[in-house]
């Protein structure tokens, strides 16, 4: 132990002070909370998970004027009465209900000046928690533009003297004052919360005393109001029959026959409305939202048409814009392979570097431009508020498969990657609807499928024009459609059988359109690029190396001596160019034989009978098996296996695939076989990260196993049907 601690660098000891005060950052969804959190903590953040729940825990360090605070970024919420998993976590943390996690010492309430009504109702509730509160008023520029003048002094007065800092998070205006106030916050006295419901407070205080202080006033209030919550059930369990009778009597006395949640909302919003009228000098609010774009999108047809047009542009751009960059990466990879071969000559090491590493990893890196363009669009759509609006536009369509519009956001996110898509299902209130959405999301064509599609389409679909569309583009569009149909059919199937339940409800606060924040978009894009490159550098690199080794070893002496003998024989009869051509052919045949008798060849051949009905040879079978941890690996594996034993003039993977044959000389990649292979990749769940995410989000192995078996079966059967009917 002594030796261990001796190795800790001196700097990290001197930084360690007494634990910093913890400040929870709370606010409505879309209030600019995370932007502000990023601004205040910069890159000094870490992301983890709360024990027992799946919601990410964002904690960042805030340093200012020699002081240090710990900021906790919590999911957006409207009230302490949770509706979804995310809201429950936010409420549990604010109330200190999470195990091993003390309640925060102070609260930074983020209030969107354009959504003052909903924000006030939440802030009033947060003030009741008895912690020091600081209010950051965001979007003041947008409120100004809308003609809403907020009397900040009066607002602070109505909120028991809470300090208020107006900020424009995008430009940084007002941030320094906020930083100063934030540093002072933990030492401040808690403000006196506006009393919106004296009867409830009195009843709770009385009950808290009668129950001998087992629970405090706020806890009693929550137990009275959130009748069916986990917390209320927990309280009921801990109270005896007598305590429960008292609780029930108090509930009856305070609420009568009005549902407690409704009564609470009514009280808090009555107060919020009153404050709003008091602190906003002009009241053009009702009409102020009607700017041009919003008005257009509010036309049902125009809005829906715009949604589809945007999606069409996204998928078109993914191909059109990325081509020059991809050609560049492709060229670089090719010349690197050549240079390596020229430099290292023949042998195991040269083959390892050129065919294993450069060809394998390069064939995946080439898709970075496409993936970044796709993510760019999804991030912009999300940040501008367009995704939330699509939930409203698509609610009716989603109802027909038993879900609500809320499920559309995870599904659109899944076009980039199913992992964030599945995590985005946390806002779906009902567990059954959430699981149905989780199982539908991996069917959406994610960015890792793009490399597979792009390779096969560019190799086997002619770039002819069909009307205004390109045939290649049409095939790709069809594959996206196949994914959407597969996902929706799965959701429908589940909602009709295992996950049958009440009709999902739909109630959503839709954020206004706003110009996406460049910094937010840039940071997110950078982090996606990092994730992709890390995957290429670790998982895909490892698989490429393993596949190369399995394909290179063992080397057969017989094949080598036979090759040497055949070349010697050729040298006797031929000369010049003819000799060179003959030697090249002989070398390739030998390389192909080596590959066939390698470990990879043997493994591929042993599973090949399973895939023979799909028209796959052992090389394709081996590549598909190798790509179950991460589907884009198939491109790397095909790149490696078809690089070994390739003809000299086949410089691209596409041409190598096009010329590949079965052992009996039949063309390997026939149209039905390629179509089947594409469908296999459209449906199959070849992604360890997605399986792990489903496990984490559903808290059981049941759903990831069901998803994997089901999707693999759908993929296999589709490929089988297409190949057998087509051939």
């Amino acid at each position, binding site marked *: 132990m002594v030796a261990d601690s001796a190795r800790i660098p001196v700097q990290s000891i001197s930084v360690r002070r007494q634990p910093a005060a913890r400040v929870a950052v709370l606010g409505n969804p879309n209030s600019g909370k995370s932007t502000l959190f990023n601004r205040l903590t910069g890159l000094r953040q870490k992301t983890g998970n709360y024990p027992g729940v799946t919601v990410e825990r964002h904690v960042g360090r805030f340093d200012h004027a020699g002081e240090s605070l710990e900021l906790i970024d919590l999911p957006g919420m*409207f*009230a302490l*009465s949770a*509706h979804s998993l995310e809201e429950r976590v936010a409420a549990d943390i604010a109330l200190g209900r999470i195990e091993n996690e003390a309640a925060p010492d102070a609260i930074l309430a983020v209030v969107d000046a*354009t*959504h*003052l*009504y*909903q924000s006030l*109702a939440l802030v009033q509730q947060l003030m009741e928690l008895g912690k020091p509160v600081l209010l950051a008023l965001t979007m003041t520029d947008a409120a100004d533009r*809308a003609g*809403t003048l907020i009397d900040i002094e009066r607002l602070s007065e109505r909120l028991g003297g809470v300090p208020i800092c107006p900020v424009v998070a995008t430009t940084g205006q007002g941030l320094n004052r906020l930083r100063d106030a934030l540093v002072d916050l933990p030492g401040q006295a808690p403000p006196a919360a506006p009393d919106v419901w004296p009867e409830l407070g009195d009843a709770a205080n009385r009950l808290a005393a009668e129950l001998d202080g087992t629970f405090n006033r706020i806890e009693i209030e929550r137990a009275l109001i959130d009748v069916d919550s986990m917390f209320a059930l927990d309280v009921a369990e801990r109270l005896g029959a007598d305590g429960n009778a008292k609780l029930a009597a108090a509930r009856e006395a305070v609420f009568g026959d*009005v*549902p407690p*949640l*409704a009564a609470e*909302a*009514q009280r808090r*919003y*009555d107060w*919020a*409305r009153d404050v*709003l009228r008091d602190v906003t000098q002009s*009241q053009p*609010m*009702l*009409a*102020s*939202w009607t700017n041009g774009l919003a008005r257009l*999108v*509010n*036309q*049902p*047809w125009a*809005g*829906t048409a715009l949604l589809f047009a945007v999606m069409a542009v996204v998928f078109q751009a993914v191909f059109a814009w990325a081509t020059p960059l991809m050609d560049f990466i492709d060229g670089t990879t090719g010349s690197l392979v050549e240079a390596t071969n020229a430099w290292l000559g023949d042998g195991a090491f040269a083959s390892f570097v050129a065919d294993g590493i450069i060809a394998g990893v390069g064939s995946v890196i080439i898709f970075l431009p496409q993936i970044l363009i796709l993510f760019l669009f999804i991030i912009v759509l999300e940040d501008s508020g367009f995704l939330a609006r699509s*939930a*409203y*536009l*698509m*609610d*009716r369509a989603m109802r027909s498969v038993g879900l609500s*519009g809320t499920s559309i956001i995870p599904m659109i996110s899944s076009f980039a990657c199913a992992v964030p898509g599945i995590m985005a299902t946390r806002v779906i*209130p009902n567990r059954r609807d959430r699981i149905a959405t989780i199982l539908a999301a991996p069917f959406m064509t994610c960015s890792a499928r793009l490399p597979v599609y792009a390779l096969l389409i560019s190799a086997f679909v002619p770039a002819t024009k069909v009307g205004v569309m390109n045939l290649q583009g049409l095939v790709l569009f069809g594959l996206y459609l196949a994914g959407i149909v597969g996902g929706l059919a799965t959701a429908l199937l589940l909602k009709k059988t295992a996950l049958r339940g009440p009709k999902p*409800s*739909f*109630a*959503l*606060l*839709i*954020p*206004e359109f706003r110009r996406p924040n460049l910094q937010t978009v840039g940071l997110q894009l950078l982090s996606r690029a990092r994730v992709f490159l890390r995957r290429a550098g670790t998982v895909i690199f490892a698989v490429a190396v393993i596949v190369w080794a399995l394909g290179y070893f063992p080397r057969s002496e017989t094949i080598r001596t036979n090759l040497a003998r055949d070349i010697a024989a050729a040298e006797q009869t031929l000369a010049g160019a003819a000799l060179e051509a003959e030697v090249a052919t002989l070398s390739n045949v030998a390389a192909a034989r080596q590959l066939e008798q390698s470990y990879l060849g043997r493994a591929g051949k042993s599973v090949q009978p399973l895939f023979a009905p799909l028209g796959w040879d052992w090389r394709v079978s081996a590549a598909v098996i190798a790509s179950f941890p991460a589907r884009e690996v198939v491109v790397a594996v095909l790149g490696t296996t078809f690089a070994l034993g390739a003809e000299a003039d086949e410089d691209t993977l596409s041409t190598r695939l096009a010329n590949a044959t079965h052992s009996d000389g039949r063309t390997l990649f026939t149209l039905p076989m390629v179509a089947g292979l594409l469908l296999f990749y459209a449906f199959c769940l070849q992604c360890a990260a997605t399986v792990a995410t489903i496990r984490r989000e559903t808290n059981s192995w049941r759903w990831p196993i069901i998803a994997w078996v089901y999707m693999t079966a759908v993929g296999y059967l589709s490929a089988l049907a297409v190949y057998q009917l087509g051939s």
Partner: protein
Amino acid sequence: MQLSAIKSGLRYVIEAIDCRDPAVQRLMMLGLVQGTEVELGGSALGGDPLEVRVFGNAISLRREQARCFTVAPVASGG
């Protein structure tokens, strides 16, 4: 009249709510409570769901829930 029948360009005030449906309670948590003024923001294809505006903010809800809110027009101008 019911919230599901409101016309655009006019302002209404919520007078009564049938709040047994949990989805209606959720809408109340978003600010659709008695005494609040609303106006029609728009609707999706087929007229469902609706988008209503409360103090300028868009809240989306289905017709089914909108029928639980009783509203009355208020004098325009405000």
